[in-house]
């Protein structure tokens, strides 16, 4: 279970570029649930994900995962519990190293790395078996540098690597956004299959309303660093893309109104 308790983060505090990326965010994710986060650009959805991944330390609040207080853990230490797939399809793999070697690195995620050879024959067969399930024909190219593969292939492999040893939490950061439509659909399909098969707990940031409606079983909408909507269970079952769009409009209109009122008051009283 992931428990995020009132975390806040302000970037460039006390400067003109000050950004309140997260403001008092609370979120609990039960084991085995698949949650999607949607929101406009700058709403803090990726920041929330990065806070859980440990890319930065929050200004306030705490994060608990699988019974550990991971608030102060550095990024590499959290990797023992967390598997990640990035938006950039090139971010999750080492380009000069072979497919098998990349998977070998992922196999030891969060474990001691010994002086034994990384790619043994049995391990190679194991990799071939699981890479075959991706249906991309990569099982014959295990010794090729991963940099020679396409973005979609690399993203599918990153997904496989992130789930090679079962993570307590899988973080997906707009992982289909930078792919061509066909690859994006393929990776989205793989995501669903793997999460359902392994019964993983997952948190996915997405910019695609369609994906948010189709893949996860809970949708969280963020705006200006706070959670403004939370569709769960039956409400999630019923929600469709136009509903989400309408909610977006409502949230944004409310804000426009707030700002114009504030402007009027300023003219009058200051």
């Amino acid at each position, binding site marked *: 279970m992931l428990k995020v308790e009132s975390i806040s983060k302000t970037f460039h505090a006390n400067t003109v570029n000050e950004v309140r990326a997260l403001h008092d965010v609370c979120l609990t994710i039960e084991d085995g649930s698949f949650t999607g986060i949607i929101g406009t650009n700058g709403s803090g959805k990726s920041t929330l994900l990065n806070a859980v*991944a440990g890319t930065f330390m929050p200004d306030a609040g705490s994060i608990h995962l699988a019974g550990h207080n991971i608030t102060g853990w*550095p*990024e*590499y*230490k959290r*990797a*023992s519990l967390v598997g*990640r797939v*990035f938006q950039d399809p090139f*971010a*999750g*793999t*080492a*380009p*000069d*190293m072979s497919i098998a*070697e*990349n998977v*070998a*690195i*992922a196999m*030891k*995620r*969060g*474990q001691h*790395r*010994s*002086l*034994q*050879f*990384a*790619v043994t024959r049995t391990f190679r067969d194991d990799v071939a078996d699981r890479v075959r399930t991706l249906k991309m024909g990569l099982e014959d190219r295990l010794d090729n540098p991963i940099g020679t593969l396409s973005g979609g292939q690399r993203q599918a492999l990153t997904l496989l*690597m*992130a789930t090679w040893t079962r993570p307590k939490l899988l973080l997906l950061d707009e992982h289909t956004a930078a792919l061509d439509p066909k690859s994006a659909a393929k990776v989205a399909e793989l995501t669903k299959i793997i999460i359902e098969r392994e019964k993983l707990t997952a948190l996915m940031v997405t910019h695609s309303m369609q994906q948010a409606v189709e893949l996860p079983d809970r949708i969280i909408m963020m705006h200006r660093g706070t959670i403004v909507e939370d569709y769960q269970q039956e409400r999630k079952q019923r929600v469709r893309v136009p509903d989400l769009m309408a909610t977006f409009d409502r949230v944004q209109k409310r804000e426009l109104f707030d700002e114009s009122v504030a402007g009027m008051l300023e003219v009058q009283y200051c």
Partner: protein
Amino acid sequence: MSLIIGAFTMGLILSLLSLGMFISFRMIRFTDITVDGSITLGASISAVMIVQGYSPWLAVSVSILGGALAGAITGILYTRFKIQEILSGILMMTALYSINLRVMGKSNIPLLDVTTISTGMEGILAKMTGSASKVDILGWQVPVGDLAVFATSGIIAILIACILCAFLFTHAGTALRAAGSNPQMVRAQGVNNKTMIVFGLSMANGLVALAGSLLAQYQGFADVQMGIGMMVWGLASIIIGEALVGKTSIGLTLTGVILGTILFRLLIAIALRWGLNPNDLKLVTALFVFAALVAPAWIGKMSKKVKGGFLHAES
């Protein structure tokens, strides 16, 4: 012949420098200037210990540790104190200049008529040849002493290259390579990439100091100035090696690095023989590395221009 044997021996010794720099420059991709100081550190520690009568093997081991420590400090300056990588190296290199003077007590220590690591080999060769002072190889008379140094440094270089190659394919070694290739990825896979940088630099400078130790024993002195320009020499050797064999596999590249260093020393020996002023050597090397760094992009641009012109003419 003694010129060729000399160039080969020098090349084998300095290939340890190149192998070390291969780890820092190519594996963890850190432009490490500590090299100029740590090669002298290896030489000075060994010279002092050998003169004082310690076993040369012990002296070599302490030299490696000294170099490893220097490399680790550069790594810590970079990772812990967030100093730029070039500046971290420069700081450590500058500090090492004084440290080397302290270790030696003076700027130059001669090593004449002392037991070196090739003494044992010399004994073996002497037995094999029946205590002759020179051996006949393909019609040339080669002193047994030179042959012993050549054999010893050859064995050490090949052994180290094999160990290094094997290491790079272990779990720890793949993590080290990935840390240089994609730091974001290794963090997400639970590897502290900063630790890997410190570890890699420490390993690299340990090898560089080993080269310094052997170099001092071979040339018969340790000098506080001997490290100047070594980094560029090492880089030139790596570039030649990569040009020779390509970068398709690690084992091949490591072989290439050794061959590249030897070839580089041969080229220098020939150039000096043809009357190149030794004072100009470092300028020539620097120009060579400049050309090797710029040429690929330049050639690429040229070929694109040619192709573009062709297409234009066609339309």
